């Protein structure tokens, strides 16, 4: 399962589940990052942390340890749509979404990045 900290910068993903401490979860969701929201990871800070992402037209920065609690799915790999999202007016079927990222950059978890994340196995279900 993919978490936000593993996403290669420049890739767009869709949020599946926001986990982690209640205060973090609540704040992030209140900023509009709820399941079904499209998020793009823009870059990672010079020391490897925090990371910068953009969602709903707003740029945010969160720490890798917390990004690890956000489960995501590749924007174009999403086939099943939760019922509640289907009701949402703004939900766009994957086929209709325009990807902003060139296909070549969409390889999500390159080996190099993966090995840099030791806590991967621990990330909560």
């Amino acid at each position, binding site marked *: 399962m993919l978490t936000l900290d593993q996403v290669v910068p420049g890739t767009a993903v869709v949020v599946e589940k*926001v986990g982690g*401490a209640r205060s973090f979860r*609540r704040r992030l*969701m209140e900023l509009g990052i*709820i399941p079904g929201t499209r998020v793009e990871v823009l870059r990672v800070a010079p020391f490897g942390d*925090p990371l910068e992402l953009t969602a*709903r037209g707003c740029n945010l920065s969160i720490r890798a340890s*917390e990004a690890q609690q956000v489960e995501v799915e590749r924007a174009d790999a999403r086939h099943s749509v939760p019922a509640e999202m289907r009701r*949402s007016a703004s939900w766009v079927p994957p086929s209709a979404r325009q990807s902003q990222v060139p296909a070549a950059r969409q390889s999500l978890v390159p080996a190099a990045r993966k090995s840099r994340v030791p806590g991967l196995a621990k990330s909560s279900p």
Partner: protein
Amino acid sequence: MSVARAAGEVTDAADTELERRASDRSEPLPLLLLVGNPNVGKTSLFNRLARRNERVGNYPGVTVERRTAEMALPGGRRALVADVPGAYSLSARSSEEQIALQAVLGWGDNPRPDLVVVVVDAGQLVRNLYLVLQLIELRVPLLVALNMVDEAGERAPDAEALGQRLGVTCVATNARAGGGLEDLQRAIAARLERPLPPKLHVSYPAELIRDADAVADALPRAWRGSVERDRALSLWALTSLDPDDELVGIPAELRQRCAEVLERAGSRDTDREIIESRYRCLELTLAGLAGVGANAPARHGVSVTERIDRALLHPAYGFAVFLAIMLVVFQSLFAWADPLMSGIEDLFGSLHGLVVNYLPGGFLRDLITFGVIDGVGNVVVFLPQICLLFLFIGLLEDSGYMARVAYLMDRALRAVGLHGRAFVPMMSGFACAVPAIMATRTMERRRDRLLTMLVVPLMSCSARLPVYTLLIGALFPPSHVFGFVPVQGLLMVAMYVFSTSIALIAAAVLGRTLVRGPSVPLILELPPYRWPGVPSVLKMVWLRARSFLREAGTVILGFTIVMWVLLSYPKPAPDAALVAGPAVTSPVTASSPPEVAAGAPAVNPPGADVASEGAREASALEQSFGGRLGKVLEPALAPLGFDWKIGVGIIGAFAAREVFVSVLGMVYGLGEIGDDQLAPLRERMRAETHANGRPVYTPLVGLSLMVFFALACQCMSTLAVVRRETQSWRWPVFMFGYMTSLAWVMSFIVYQGGRALGF
């Protein structure tokens, strides 16, 4: 962490004064509240609306800034406008975040607003409307100012259409350029005349409504209103109350009920249900509105901001730019402020001289010159640095770069428990702790601010520089290590590295013990780059400077007078006093008394027939409270290698660290020592011996003394500013205690360790 609360009553009185004054009139002025997310131009709008009687205070019980001013409405009417700190949501975890809800509902000591103006960034509509929706649910009279319509361009919806969908009045504005201001004022006047309670309804899942109703039964009587408001408050309690929150004034019954309801909810995620329902309501309400789309392409797609960020946040050269910008800020505090500061010092020096010449000698003249004039000078001298630092902070904050500083530095500062935003205050601490402590205001959380405030004075400020210079010059040879590294320069660098390391260690320790707070995740918005609004930045600089003068200035003035009394009373025998005057400053220059060196001023009995003015001064200082205190302290200072004369210097340095040099000059009977005439004092220090003939100043004593100066909290201005920022004496007292103990222990280790090693 109830410090601010304890002192709250004092500030409450001042803060609500304006409102009270208004309500005393026959027809009270209506109160307007400006609410909105951070970075939506709330301050610009406030500045545009505010016309007179502007004042800055604190929110009741919390040290979060509160600005209030009078504004004009069409038809010659007036109203009060107050701003609320930026918030993304009304739900809260700390007393700071609670302000928004309390201010909006007029709870506690907050006056009840007649109209809430929500400022909304037209470019980030959905996220901004989340807050609007919460206010709508509370059924408070409100009006939406759709701001930054120019910046949003095509993404901005039509204000009228948006207003119709939301069921509230909505006015398009462009606060920075002043666009739409008249429309806004007209709309405000209309809504004040004829309030229009919002009606929009969010549909929540049935089980959530049951939960909310269960919580509503436990709401205190004072909170209850309409069914809608009760439900909104119940939802607020469900999302906000937590076993480890820091909210104030929440009845135990409500906490209990929320915990029960959450437990019954079991695996259901009520937070997610509430937030998702609201976002779904917003998406449905806005569906089809031109320019709006929740999952619309990213605002900064490859926008100007993104292009700037690609350069400025680049791991390599982005960091170089960052260092360059910080260097300019730092350099300005160090070098550019200097001419202004010496100008101010000279000005007050000549004023001092003028009064001395024209007034007859005596207590009154001394009080005016050494107390009031010097004291006011001590306050005003900080203004150049404060203004410059806040000018830079304002520009960085307004342009959007400050959030990037926090982003870049977060990893490094988090290691010691500090926030990324602590970087600028910490760095400013190298110049002066006073503006640096004021700069902690850029941090939102009280815990982060407090922690930064407590360690900033450990950074080696510019006032320590003359002390290091004197000691290094006097006690260490101008030789080289390894043939090319100068010993003196190396020592100077070592002092800076040492003080910075101690500051970081202190932050790590204090952050895990005394100022431990619930860990708050970093969720940092990186706003788009904008040209800073210069008038509003300048206005902020002015307001900060004014509040410093008013609130910290009085304490610094008081301290200066106390220091003057300490160092010049009681006076020596009358004949000496007539000629010598008080000890602190005297027109005698360093060059005059070569004979004093032999005179051993320490042994002058009271009222002795002393030959030179310098020696008389030395004896006056010895008999002053300060001198006696130095002797009382001698047993405590001896383990550090200091004698009572150094003790007097340390006491004198409490006025300002650089005063150490001139107090030492007086102790040794050399008269006033300027920074540029250190040579005689150096000679004198090298010649100084204990009773048994051992020299007082060895390199080891010098090192111990420098360590003491690096760590001790010998700056009353710093303490005054900490008092002002925390609204309590508890933290300045703690700061003084922990820094001074740390200084003593470290000096002890250096001196005794050095002796044990045979130095």
